């Protein structure tokens, strides 16, 4: 049976924890609003880009197509770009992305393919390094940037492109969490090289003039498309992270509240028991006289 002092201490510490989780929840809620707005503002650009790209790509096929669309012709070496958060305490957010990446890596390895990994965000690295320490090429840390933007995405995309140009891999897949709602984030894998051209994009049968010519536009457009995909992943991730943290902290706060209630009840009960015991002792002492 814990003493009264123990119980008091325990209640005080749970209360302190509850204050922290409550504060974190509110901070996450405020950040979520901004992250969500940023993710939504970036959507139109990505969508338009897809449409234009689909239109262009349908015109350029066969051997004339750039390698970013047609691929290298083999699929021996896979690059997994795993985007996670820099911080923990956000429920299953990081682990679910890492799990998806790990399953994919294991499946590829079972097929005797080489797997290389780039981690964007420290948490994914922390999880994946246990199993794939040797396969991780690089860890990109975005912690220093308060608001990640186009510049960061461009840096990552350039990095990937340089590796592709150097022939380090054949297929690249991007892992991130799609923001659906505050309580639902979907870990997603998206192939970025060779580019996935959406076939269901609204096609226009108009015949376009190209200035400069088609292949040249496509050549400048494809690297940019990669940047946009990376940017989208990062922004969706940021919103998902805050959403996951918000709901995780909400349930943590609720759990702490429940615990305080139980402990307080226990505390009061043992306090009463103590008083009763003392009274009995006094009365029986007086009776013995």
């Amino acid at each position, binding site marked *: 049976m814990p003493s009264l002092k123990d119980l008091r201490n325990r209640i005080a510490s749970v209360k302190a924890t509850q204050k922290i989780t409550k504060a974190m929840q509110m901070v996450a809620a405020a950040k979520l609003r901004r992250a969500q707005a*940023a993710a939504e*503002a*970036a959507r*139109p*650009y990505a969508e*338009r*880009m897809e449409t*234009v790209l689909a*239109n*262009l790509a349908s015109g350029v096929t066969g051997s004339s197509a750039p390698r970013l669309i047609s691929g290298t012709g083999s699929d021996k070496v896979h690059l997994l770009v795993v985007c996670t958060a820099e911080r923990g305490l956000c429920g299953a957010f990081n682990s679910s992305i890492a799990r998806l990446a790990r399953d994919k890596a294991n499946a590829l390895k079972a097929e005797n393919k080489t797997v290389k990994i780039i981690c964007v965000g420290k948490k994914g690295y922390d999880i994946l390094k246990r199993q794939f320490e040797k396969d991780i090429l690089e860890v990109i840390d975005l912690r220093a940037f308060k608001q990640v*933007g*186009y510049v960061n*995405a461009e840096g990552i995309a350039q990095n990937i492109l*340089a590796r592709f*140009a150097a022939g380090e891999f054949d297929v690249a897949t991007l892992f991130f969490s799609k923001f659906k709602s505050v309580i639902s984030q979907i870990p997603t894998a998206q192939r970025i090289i060779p580019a996935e051209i959406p076939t269901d994009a609204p096609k*226009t049968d*108009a*015949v*376009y*003039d*190209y*200035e*400069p010519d088609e292949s*040249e*536009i496509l050549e*400048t*457009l494809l690297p*940019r498309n990669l*940047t*946009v995909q990376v*940017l989208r992943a990062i922004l969706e991730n940021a919103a998902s992270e805050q959403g996951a943290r918000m709901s995780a902290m909400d349930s943590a706060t609720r759990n702490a509240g429940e615990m305080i209630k139980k402990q307080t009840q226990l505390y009061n009960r043992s306090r009463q028991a103590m008083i009763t015991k003392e009274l009995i002792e006094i009365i029986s002492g007086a009776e013995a006289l």
Partner: protein
Amino acid sequence: MATFKFELVSPERILFSGDVVSVIIPSTEGEMTVLAGHAPLVATLKAGIVFVQTTDQNGKEFFVNGGLVEVNHGATTILAEQGRFLEDVNAAVLDQEILTAETKLAGSHDEDEQKRLHDTLVQLREFKHVFEQRKAA
């Protein structure tokens, strides 16, 4: 006057969306004006000013740096790599852009990329010159 739908989108947000009478676009092949009923066209952009003539007689100006324009029957879209309101542009912003382009050029080893970055740099310098002249006038 005949109008058409025009959108100016940067990776971060939509800068302009609405019905316009005409748009002047700085394409890599030269400046061009798009009116309603323009033939379908896809062109790349250089650093410069996009001038949008809206229906209410007032023009709006934006600074863009690189990107793509898609002219379609009924709708025109600019996908600008970088875009901002011209009011927000000043010499410091341009200097920063030029500096970024210079560091990128210095750090690049790929020949094609070097050529592209060099073009960007030249365009930016040209634009800065035009911008300063405009300011003086």
